[in-house]
């Protein structure tokens, strides 16, 4: 027998109350896990896509770097960027979120400069790539093909234009697997934005260093008013949607922590009230105040730890479920990392101990004689 088994026994002695408390904590933690993995997954998915493509810097309009980058005419800029030292290649990109057909959920449509490095990392599973920059065809990511129920030879309708599906590819990035891919020229024609791009992607050569990338950034901000060169990570983390998602997850963490701590607080207060006499007995039997405090804190930490474990499991299931809803499928790659789960577990214990401290101090401060007189 030790303090932990004693604390566990006290919790098991009141199964209904303990399980209610654990459930309340688990719900809060589940919400934290689901929202946070999705908010961070959203960011990570885009980061992954840019990393897979080999993009080092992205040139976008200064004013729209926080939101969906607004299109601009890219040709002149592209030439200038290509002449900076260590820039290997510059590729234009125009992306849209479009609905294909009436019922299907919106899907990413990427227009990539024909023949650019952007295509290199994709693995063609079936069919072929577009033959030239104007061929009216589309290739689909594996997930997009599955969601749209399309295979090679089928036709898809995009903003009134009919494109033939000629290839199916796989990428290491989920967002690309869930996308429809066409050439930049086709995308400009479909969306009625001739010569325009959302962003220009810069790939540096193999010998380029951080300093070379910084040099390009500086040059862009000096010589191209209205434009900024940023890393893909910066682009994603400045995105308003990502910021909102993160803010929501922060608020959820805060609320879940407060609610969890209050629930633990209330439970332990009730428990101590009922056990006043028992605490007096322990004091009479020579238990120091510190040990009584420690026992109560152990109890509250155990409640919270169990709630945290269940909450993490439920939260992961919830996030996986959300990932697979029609609306989110192929757009978000929720990330569950061991450090994240440990941090959430740490948060649970923190709220448990936080909620248990005051009741524990109250219990430890009881006068033994008064506690023993308690009915």
């Amino acid at each position, binding site marked *: *027998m*030790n*303090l932990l088994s004693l604390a566990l*026994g006290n919790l098991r*002695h009141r199964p209904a109350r303990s399980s209610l408390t654990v459930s309340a904590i688990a719900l809060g933690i589940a919400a934290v896990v689901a929202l946070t993995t999705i908010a961070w997954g959203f960011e990570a998915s885009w980061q992954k896509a840019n990393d897979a493509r080999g993009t080092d810097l992205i040139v976008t309009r200064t004013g729209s770097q926080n939101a969906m980058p607004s299109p601009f005419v890219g040709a002149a800029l592209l030439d200038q960027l290509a002449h900076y030292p260590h820039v290997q290649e510059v590729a234009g990109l125009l992306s849209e979120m479009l609905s294909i057909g009436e019922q299907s959920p919106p899907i990413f449509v990427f227009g990539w400069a024909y023949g650019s490095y952007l295509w290199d990392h994709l693995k063609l599973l079936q069919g072929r790539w577009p033959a030239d920059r104007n061929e009216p065809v589309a290739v689909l990511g594996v997930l997009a093909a599955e969601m749209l129920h399309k295979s090679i030879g089928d036709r898809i309708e995009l903003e009134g234009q009919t494109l033939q599906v000629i290839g199916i590819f796989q990428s290491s990035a989920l967002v690309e697997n869930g996308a429809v891919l066409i050439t930049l020229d086709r995308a400009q024609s479909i969306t009625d934005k001739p010569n325009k791009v959302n962003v220009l992607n810069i790939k540096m050569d193999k010998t380029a260093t951080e300093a070379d990338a910084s040099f390009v950034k500086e040059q862009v901000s000096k010589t191209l008013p209205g434009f900024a060169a940023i890393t893909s990570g910066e682009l994603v983390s400045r995105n308003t949607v990502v910021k909102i998602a993160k803010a929501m997850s922060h608020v959820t963490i805060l609320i879940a922590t407060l609610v969890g701590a209050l629930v633990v607080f209330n439970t332990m207060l009730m428990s101590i009230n009922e056990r006043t006499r028992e605490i007096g007995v322990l*004091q*009479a039997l*020579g238990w*120091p105040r510190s040990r009584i405090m420690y026992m109560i804190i152990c109890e509250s930490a155990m409640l919270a730890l169990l709630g945290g474990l269940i909450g993490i499991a439920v939260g992961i299931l919830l996030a996986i479920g959300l990932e697979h809803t029609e609306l989110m499928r192929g757009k978000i790659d929720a990330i569950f990392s061991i450090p994240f789960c440990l941090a959430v577990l740490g948060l649970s214990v923190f709220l448990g101990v936080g909620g248990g401290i005051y009741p524990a101090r109250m219990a430890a401060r009881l006068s033994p004689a008064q506690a*023993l007189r308690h009915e």
Partner: protein
Amino acid sequence: MKLVPQSAQPSPDGATPILDIRNVSLHFDEGRAKAVNGVDLRIAEGEFVAIDGPSGSGKSSLLNLIGALDVPTCGEIYFRGQPYSGIADMALFRSRHIGFVFQTFNLIPTLSALENVMIPVLGHSWSAARQRSKAASLLSGMGLADRLHCFPATLSGGERQRVAIARSMINDPGLILADEPTGSLDSVNAQQVLELLIGSREERQITLVMVTHDRSISARADRVIHMHDGRNESLGEGG
């Protein structure tokens, strides 16, 4: 004027008493309730003292003071010559020197008989095995060898009080304080519990201070203290 530190007076035979209670009072509600009111009492090492008196006369309050569960409003208690007011850690003092037996047993319901007996030594440096074996042998001595893993709810009143007596002895106390230990038991069980308590304290030479209303019990004591309105009147030798 010479300032002599107050200390315990040796008893007439020269030995330091285990308890020397000097003009001790315990008041509640700003003096309106005088639970203990100027008690003077010396108890010798190994003595069995019974305390009786009407309800509300301050017996439990006096026991609480002796057990260092409450702090006297005035006066001083010395344990083997050491004043209570000089003891920094009362919990440690209790866990080393004092055993308690209560009228209502006060076992912890979530713990087995064996675990209940181990509570007082949980924080001691003893190994788990030593705690267990000592608790088990005390329970065997109480005739509960086959009840070690029973929970209090499944034990009879007499059995519960025997567990509580085993618990009061696990720390080898010099002093056991028992507040009406047979008050919740029928006469057969009361008799059995009493024999076990008196028997083990003789065996271990433990000083016993017991509050009781039962004249047949106080008759077995070395001395009976009669409490009345918070004061004590010694009735001398029991029996």
